[in-house]
């Protein structure tokens, strides 16, 4: 079960790593193979990696920052597996076998994509409709060749060769026709006999990217990407701006402060009324129902007071601060000219 999940993970990952070259992709897949081999529990590792798509996004970012080595380091970092504590690497022969498997996965995915792109063009190519002149020197003409050679093709054998040898013999065209009529069964047998379900449903459309990263990451990246240019002041515009907008800004700030002060006054009046009502309830009342009603009025006054107080603070922070920031931004836009660093 775990083996199947690992294979599926690698297959999906190979599909997504389109930004890498073939060699780099195989290196990444081999690195993940090592990680899977070194992991004490592969289910936990799969849980830590979350999904091939997420791993692809992380690898893409690491690759764009520091190339392949950064991506490989990020792979180990994502998995959380200590490769130094892993058992010694396999023998060169076994390693070459592993490399063949990953190369087979990569090429299988590419072929799957190609076959999805042009589904009907290839089957007609190997066999022509007109009778092919028979060459007497063909090595396989003496013995009858079975018409269905493509059924149990092992991984090691190249799958295209049996189909190509069929038209060379002296067989009528009608008997050779079934061979190209079903080229697809040859393909999955060559791709991965362990897991045909992962390869046979060709997915032409890559799933939509779902961002799970916090926004700060992109903000940091955006900040890094923005070049810091130099600004040069335009004196005439600056003087004009100061003469015009400093008085206007001061007037605007004064008006906003007046509105904020009025709101604060209302809040203070409401809170004061509440305090007044509470003191009245416990000083001059004799009937319990009247006391309850007065306390109710006091609570309503407190609620209004708290609301108006926060409204006044919010108004002052947002409006006055926004006005000042807007004036400064406008001044920077009008009075300063960006000069390229070079």
């Amino acid at each position, binding site marked *: 079960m775990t083996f199947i999940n690992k294979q599926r993970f690698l297959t999906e990952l190979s599909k997504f790593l389109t930004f890498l070259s073939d060699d780099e992709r195989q290196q990444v897949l081999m690195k993940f193979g090592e990680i899977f081999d070194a992991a004490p529990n592969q289910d936990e590792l799969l849980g830590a990696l979350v999904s091939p798509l997420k791993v692809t996004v992380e690898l893409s970012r690491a690759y764009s920052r520091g190339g392949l080595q950064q991506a490989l380091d990020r792979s180990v970092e994502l998995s959380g597996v200590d490769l130094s504590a892993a058992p010694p690497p396999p023998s060169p022969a076994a390693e070459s076998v592993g490399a063949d498997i990953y190369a087979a996965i990569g090429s299988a995915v590419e072929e799957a994509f190609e076959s999805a792109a042009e589904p009907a063009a290839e089957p007609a190519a190997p066999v022509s409709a007109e009778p092919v002149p028979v060459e007497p020197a063909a090595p396989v003409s003496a013995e009858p060749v079975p018409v269905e050679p493509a059924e149990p093709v092992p991984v090691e054998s190249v799958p295209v060769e049996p189909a190509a040898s069929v038209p060379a013999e002296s067989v009528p065209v009608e008997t050779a026709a079934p061979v190209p009529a079903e080229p697809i069964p040859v393909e999955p047998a060559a791709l991965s006999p362990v897991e045909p379900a992962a390869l046979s449903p060709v997915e032409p459309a890559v799933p939509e990217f779902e961002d799970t990263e916090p926004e700060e990451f992109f903000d940091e990246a955006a900040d890094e990407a923005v070049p810091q240019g130099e600004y040069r002041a335009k004196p005439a515009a600056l003087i004009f701006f100061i003469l015009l907008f400093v008085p206007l800004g001061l007037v605007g700030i004064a008006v906003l402060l007046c509105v904020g002060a009025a709101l604060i006054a209302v809040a203070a009046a409401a809170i004061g009324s509440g305090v007044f009502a509470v003191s009245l309830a416990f000083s001059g*009342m004799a009937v319990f*129902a009247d006391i309850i009603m007065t306390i*109710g009025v006091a609570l309503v006054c407190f609620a209004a007071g708290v609301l108006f107080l926060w409204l006044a603070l919010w108004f002052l922070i947002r409006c006055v601060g926004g006005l000042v920031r807007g004036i400064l931004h406008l001044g920077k836009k009008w009075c300063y000219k960006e000069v390229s660093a070079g």
Partner: protein
Amino acid sequence: MKTIWRVVGLIALGALTLGAVCIVVGLITGGSIDRIIDALFANYDVDYYLKICQQFVGTLF
């Protein structure tokens, strides 16, 4: 900022609801607004404060 708005709104809504409940309970149990106003005017010199407010408004407008 949004969190503060939420907290302030919850506090204000809670106080408003509790005050409304108190007023309704007081009215149900026999409370009287006239009696409260009489007690207010008897304990505090409300007319004096009203005159001050009227003068302040008159000076403004």
